[in-house]
């Protein structure tokens, strides 16, 4: 429990720095700290596989790319005026919605009883091997097969779009 609060505090602190700080490189580095803290939460939930993937993909690849681009363009501190009133209003509404949903989930949350029936594919918590690579893979390719394929399709679409944009710039 204590570990969770430390990790959560680090995550929230780093997330605040990402939003508030004006230097893009510092923001990117805080994003790494935030992602590592979230990986720590995954480990506490006994999902080591997910934690490792989080670190490899997000912290190890995506944010390195973001930092690379920031450094390549040599961006200085962000010069920004205050956001307009409509932006602020939308941000406030979305934030309130998120807090409402999360708060409701937190208030109505009941820990699973120890004798909860265990699902054979190991998706439910307390199942033997919960969070292991085997259980994860079986769930991904059986129960959640269609969402998984839909996400792959979305990624292929994004890739095609990126190639198209890059090609067009070359021809001009």
């Amino acid at each position: 429990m204590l570990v969770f609060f430390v990790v959560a505090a680090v995550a929230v602190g780093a997330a605040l720095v990402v939003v508030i700080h004006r230097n893009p490189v510092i923001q990117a580095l805080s994003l790494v700290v935030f992602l590592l803290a979230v990986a720590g939460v995954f480990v506490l939930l006994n999902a080591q596989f997910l934690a490792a993937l989080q670190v490899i993909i997000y912290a190890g690849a995506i944010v390195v790319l973001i930092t690379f681009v920031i450094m390549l363009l040599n961006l200085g501190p962000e010069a920004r005026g205050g956001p307009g009133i409509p932006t602020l209003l939308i941000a406030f509404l979305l934030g309130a919605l998120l807090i409402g949903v999360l708060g409701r989930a937190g208030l109505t949350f009941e820990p699973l009883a120890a004798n909860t029936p265990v699902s054979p594919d190991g998706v439910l918590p307390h199942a033997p091997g919960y969070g292991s690579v085997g259980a994860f893979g079986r769930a991904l390719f059986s129960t959640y097969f269609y969402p998984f394929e839909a996400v792959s399709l979305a990624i292929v679409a994004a890739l095609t779009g990126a190639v198209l944009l890059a090609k067009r710039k070359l021809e001009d």
Partner: protein
Amino acid sequence: MDYVLLAAVAIKVTLIVVICIAIVPIMTWVERRGAGVLQMRLGPNRVGPFGLFQPVADGLKFFFKEDLLPPFANRPVFVMAPFVAMAAAICALAVIPFGSVLTVLGRKIPLVIADVDAGVLLLLAASSMGVYGIIMAGWSSNNKYSQYGGLRSSAQIISYELALGLAVIAVLVLSGTLRPTAIVIQQAESWWNVLYLPLGFLLLLISGFAETNRLPFDLPEAESELVGGYHTEYSSMKFSMFFMAEYLNMVVSACLLVTLYLGGYAVPGFIRNALGLSGNWLAAAEVATFFAKVFFFLWLFVWVRWTLPRFRFDQLMHIGWKILIPLGFLNVIWAALLVVWGVRS
């Protein structure tokens, strides 16, 4: 709570970190004497027998140098960078099995710090954090040479991490597990993975050179173009920590190669039978076998460094994206075919 097991974990962690850090001064000596041998000269030979105490003299010198901080550097990031580089290298050592089990006071102590289900992935995750040390150093120094070094390094490491990942995935497909100890035991029971996947072994070796910024891929610190690369502005122990991180990364790279492709700590059966090894003697022989293999690759790193010239940056990117990655996919398909044909089982 079993205090003996708890103490064993503490001792294991300390010993492994100390041994791996102790490899650094030994390797600097090997590197300089090795360079001497390869270039038909003597190398450092004045301090102690065969120049053996040269690393001690260098270490003392680092301690007494002034620790400079560039006036326009970003101070917190500049100070943290060498720590990040070194911590990432040390973390990766946690999941590498150095031997099977040691029996102390009737308790079996596995010779690996953390035997976790997703071990290979954790190793990749820890080593992928190492690039941040270099990026942070390059950016915070506020120096164009450092910046170029950091940029080159991040581009290079992202590109070669893909080839490295594909070489690792092939082993995972073949062995059907992510647990390093299980992969080693499988190889001990049949043949080394390098015999099934020779291409994957080569890919892992080449991308290992690129990931550790060693020649012929040492563009992030190409001294003829970039003064010193990302660590141009660093002095004293901070520079020394980057240096140690580079050598620790070599150790991690060698451990990964040995564990995944060359049978890890397993002592060959005929040697075990000939010497009649069992129990703790077997464990000692396993640790010795493991480090012998690791030291071979550390020597290979030195050997290659003083043999090959450096690539140009476009050649580096060409090799990474257009040669190694397609070969990596071929290798994964080959591994899948081996599983379908039931070669391993």
